[in-house]
């Protein structure tokens, strides 16, 4: 007999429950192992499935059944029913709702925590190496030249970089974001620490330009990895359990209150990690999605967009704040590259999140469409971009040629209305 695989068990469970148990209004819970349970709210009067029905479902799910005796969770008999029936991660359907239980990954589908008091801009790429941090540094400088106060947060804790790009070695602050998380976990994340986590970048022009790097200045007695290992842990405060996303949101709020920037640039980690999810979806940021026109990139974005298609309720909060960025438009045949990018980008959105009969829908060439990319031109000269240590290596004209249009587009988002 062929084993019932992970995906098949879930779609089988959903279809079967829709067809046979809709009156029970069950929640299908998929646990850490992919094993499936049904939770029924008997206190609301919904009927329980019959033992025969449960037996049939159990047999059909194979290894992905939670077990004959564990398949059914009855609300009146549950220790902590709110963990399921009031879970923020519930995807509610008309008859059947779904609840995923994973170790990580829930942040992509969770609601916004806040929008902050500054314009927040997230720089994200599902795959790395697309010049995100360079773009961030250029953007920060250009916005500062326009008189805007800018704070840059290096959220790429596993691969920190933008701090070093924007701060010379002798100006790195004593502490960084990882320090905040470990100090906050024991209740001593005070203003003194906040001040010691931020440094002024020499790229500052007319407006302030602060940088909060991932870690502090490396020195004897300073450990980075031991703090990174603990950064994501949830803490318990008097108000209850507080997860990492909330802690990061609180940190952003506190830095904004302290420094009062006009713009906060969130240099996100690449990939599908939770910290990227928080930066892109949960902090009210205008999210720039960097990409190159390669099958690997589109395939990787499709994983995310497919998730959003299935969690459209959560996606609704985010969809007006997304914009693709063609991050490395080549020097030759650039027009055909951009056209190919635009076509692939359009297909990505159209296949997943554009509404055929709704307001969130755009034509291929629509200028305001999120799929229509902002453009950064790859230039050999920009590979030498090291504004802090070798400011003469790249000229302003070269930066303008590579990123002028990109900067203009983003800057227009930053002016308060």
């Amino acid at each position, binding site marked *: 007999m062929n084993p019932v695989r992970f995906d098949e068990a879930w779609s089988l469970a959903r279809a079967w429950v829709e067809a046979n148990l809709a009156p029970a209004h069950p929640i299908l*819970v998929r*646990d*850490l*192992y992919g*094993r499936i*349970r049904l*939770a029924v709210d008997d206190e609301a009067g919904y009927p329980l499935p019959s033992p025969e029905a449960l037996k049939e479902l159990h047999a059909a799910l194979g290894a992905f059944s*939670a*077990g*004959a*005796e*564990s398949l059914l*969770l009855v609300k009146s*008999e*549950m*220790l*902590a*029913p*709110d*963990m*399921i029936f009031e879970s923020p*991660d519930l995807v509610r359907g008309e008859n059947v709702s779904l609840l*995923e*239980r*994973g*170790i*990580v990954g*829930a942040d992509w589908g969770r609601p916004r925590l806040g929008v902050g008091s500054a314009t927040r801009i997230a720089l994200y790429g599902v795959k790395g190496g697309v010049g995100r941090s360079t773009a961030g540094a250029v953007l920060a400088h250009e916005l500062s030249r326009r008189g805007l106060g800018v704070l840059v947060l290096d959220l790429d804790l596993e691969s920190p970089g933008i701090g070093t790009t924007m701060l010379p070695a002798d100006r790195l602050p004593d502490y960084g974001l990882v320090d905040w998380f470990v100090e906050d976990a024991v209740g001593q994340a005070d203003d003194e620490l906040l001040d010691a986590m931020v440094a002024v970048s020499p790229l500052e022009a007319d407006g302030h330009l602060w940088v909060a790097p991932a870690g502090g200045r490396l020195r004897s007695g300073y450990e980075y990895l031991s703090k990174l290992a603990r950064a*994501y*842990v*949830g803490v*318990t405060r008097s*108000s*209850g*359990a507080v*997860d990492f996303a909330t802690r990061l949101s609180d940190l952003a709020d506190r830095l904004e209150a302290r420094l009062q920037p006009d713009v906060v640039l969130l240099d996100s980690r690449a990939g599908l990690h939770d910290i990227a999810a928080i930066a892109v979806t949960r902090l009210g940021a205008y999210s720039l999605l960097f990409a190159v026109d390669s099958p690997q990139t589109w395939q990787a974005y499709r994983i995310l967009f497919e998730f959003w298609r299935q969690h459209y309720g959560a996606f609704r909060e985010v969809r007006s704040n997304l914009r693709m960025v063609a991050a490395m438009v080549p020097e030759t045949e650039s027009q055909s590259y951009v056209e190919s990018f635009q076509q692939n980008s359009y297909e990505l959105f159209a296949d997943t999140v554009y509404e055929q009969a709704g307001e969130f829908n755009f034509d291929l060439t629509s200028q305001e469409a999120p799929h229509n990319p902002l453009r950064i031109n790859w230039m050999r000269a920009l590979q030498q971009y090291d504004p802090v240590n070798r400011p003469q290596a790249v000229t302003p004209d070269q930066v303008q040629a590579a990123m002028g249009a990109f900067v203009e587009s983003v800057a227009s988002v930053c002016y308060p209305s």
Partner: protein
Amino acid sequence: MTDFVNAARHSRDGRLLRNQQREATADHLAGLAAECALKAILGALGAWAGAQPQRPYRVHIDALWGQFLGYAHGPQARYLVPLSAHPSNPFVHWTIEHRYWNEGNIGTAAELSARWAACEACMLSLAHAQADGVVP
């Protein structure tokens, strides 16, 4: 006053009884200890606000074993992961009512042995959570 962590004393007392071949009461304490250990860990997972679950006394280990993986999620869930290595529900025939039963009827030697092993596993998970500082 509820203190699930200290209530894991049931496992220590159960071990003493087991060593004296007092199997039936040891088995009863195994169920209580496992229940308290799981509740201590679930509390750290944020299963309820404050010190008390919504249904503090209603759910014992026979029902809780089938439920806890439905609650487990997030990084803190790793303490519950080793427990899923156990067969479907080692406490399925354990009941709080055993306290009133004849000691000869509470289960086979194999069942008691399996319940004791599962209890030890819960205690180990709790110890890990305490060592990590996640449970006080």
